[in-house]
């Protein structure tokens, strides 16, 4: 157990360092890290501190957020197919973010962008819980997710197409697929408070999610306050997914792949899966973002493309496996 934690931490650390070391500027690893720590004038510290550091930090933050949110949603819904991207939570967050940008809310209110994305994500989670709560089967969950995703995507496209800015319409792909390219420390500071609050909220759910393994009735009889748990889940998920989507677009499948891979390693216990998925999610997003830069450096390949290439086949596999028990 502690060995797994250590391994995941090492993986995150290694990928974080690699993320700092890789870039088109061709800065030596040692030179870059020295400039990062020591600072100073000239272009190298600027590149390290203002371009690579925020990208790597956001990779960790967003990955941890998506992994954690996926594990928490799965624990609550008792369904391994629940994932913020697939069930429309990220899409709804993207809609909130796009609305904030295009209405000018993001420009007039300092936290307008993440708040609007949070509101969008919260609406998405609430809809999912209403339509496919813990008693709903896999099919309900997937169908509700498809509907919410499609609606959010359509409205996002509509808003962007109506924008007076000629670039806006070309950014539909970014909001659907996500990217960490050219993000800055501004984005880190914008997302961090929401994410920290969300992480803390979701981390408190462990014991309740464990008890829910036995069903709502048994959990409630074991002293779990379900209403409070549900509210914490909605707010925590909305905060982390909203903040992540506001700065990097909707990155799918992280919350599906990571908990699935790590579940056997934590004895399937939902509480242990929470922190493991947070670390695993950070590692996955860092790795995907590295791949984006190494495979096609010139193309601004979207992060979500890579996570979907890895995640979608796994999703199909999971559907195949759970097919028998679907209502």
């Amino acid at each position, binding site marked *: 157990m502690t060995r797994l934690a250590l391994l995941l931490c090492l993986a995150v650390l290694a990928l974080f360092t690699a993320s700092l070391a890789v*870039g*088109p*500027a061709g*800065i030596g690893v040692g030179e870059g890290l020295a400039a990062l720590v020591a600072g100073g004038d000239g*272009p*190298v510290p*600027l*590149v390290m501190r*203002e*371009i*690579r550091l925020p990208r790597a930090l956001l990779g960790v933050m967003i990955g941890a957020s998506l992994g954690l949110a996926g594990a928490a949603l799965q624990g609550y819904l008792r369904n391994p197919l629940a994932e913020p991207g697939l069930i429309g939570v990220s899409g709804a967050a993207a809609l909130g973010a796009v609305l904030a*940008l*295009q209405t*000018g809310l*993001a*420009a007039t209110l300092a936290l307008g962008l993440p708040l609007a994305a949070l509101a969008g994500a919260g609406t998405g989670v609430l809809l999912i819980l209403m339509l496919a709560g813990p008693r709903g089967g896999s099919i309900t969950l997937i169908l509700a997710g498809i509907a919410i995703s499609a609606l959010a995507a359509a409205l996002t496209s509509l808003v962007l197409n109506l*924008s*007076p*800015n*000629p*670039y*806006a*319409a*070309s*950014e*539909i*792909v*970014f909001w659907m697929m996500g990217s960490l390219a*050219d993000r*800055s*420390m*501004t984005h880190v500071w914008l997302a961090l408070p929401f994410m920290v609050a969300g992480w803390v909220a979701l981390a408190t759910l462990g014991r309740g999610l464990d008890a829910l393994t036995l069903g709502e009735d048994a959990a409630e009889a074991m002293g779990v306050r379900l209403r409070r748990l549900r509210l914490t889940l909605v707010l925590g998920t909305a905060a982390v997914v909203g903040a992540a989507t506001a700065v990097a677009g909707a990155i799918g499948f992280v919350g599906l792949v990571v908990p699935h891979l790590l579940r056997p390693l934590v004895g399937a216990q939902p509480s242990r899966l929470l922190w493991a998925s947070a670390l695993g999610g950070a590692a996955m997003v860092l790795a995907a973002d590295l791949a984006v830069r190494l495979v096609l*450096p*010139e193309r*601004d390949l979207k992060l979500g493309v890579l996570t979907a290439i890895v995640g979608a086949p796994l999703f199909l596999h999971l559907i195949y496996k759970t097919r028998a028990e679907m209502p």
Partner: protein
Amino acid sequence: MWGCVRLSRVITLGLALAVAGAGAMAEPARVVSINLCTDQLAMLLAAPGQLVSVSDLAADPVSSAMADEARSYPVNHARAEEVYLLHPDLVLAGRYTARATVDMLRRTGIEVVEFAPANSLSDTRDRIAQMAALLGREAEGAALIARFDADLAALQAASGDAPRAALYHPNGYTLGAGTLANDILRAGGFANVAAELGHHGGGTLPLEALVMAAPDLLISAETLPGASRSEEVLVHPALEDLRASHAALRIASPDWICGTPHLLGAVEGLVAVRQTLDGAGR
């Protein structure tokens, strides 16, 4: 395709001359232009009443250097049906105008001439001459070219080491060697950093590479109304640092897009910046 709208406008504009053999025919009486750059060339050269319609882009000040002039013409949206209903005997298009539109117009028996984009100052002269020949306005064309050359000569920038300038547009789009913007930079007395880094044509310049290249002058497009993530990179803290320590210029695009004498406005702006830089004792 999504990548750079302004670029696609540039391209739409610029590209056209292949079917210039029309000189033998009588000059056309009803000309419709469906491309931003042919719009402007035609407005500069056509006889009164000869040009029937220009594209809506020509009337959009975001992309057009002649938006005011364009307002006195009916605009079209470069769709085959509306163009056909104008009964043109000549349609002016860019080489990258929607293929389907051009083919459709040709099938209805309308002559369509496609202009290649101007990728240099000398291309610009060729396009003016080509347009003049098509419209049967050779004398006006020759005069326009002569005036263009004279104005350009008058703007010749200071000699000596050219400061290095980088074009950095939304989505990190830059223009390297073999582009009209490259020639404009040179005429304004600057060396193009993107060309120096080996960029040919348009392409993405990673922010890191730009910061490492530390250009003397950073040229970026002005922010357009409405919000976009593409433009966010133009206010990235790393760029703001660069702007604080080096010179920076925010430009409006119209003068930089089309091979017309209006590009001299862009050259003029650069010459002025060069003078300030030289004056600052670099």
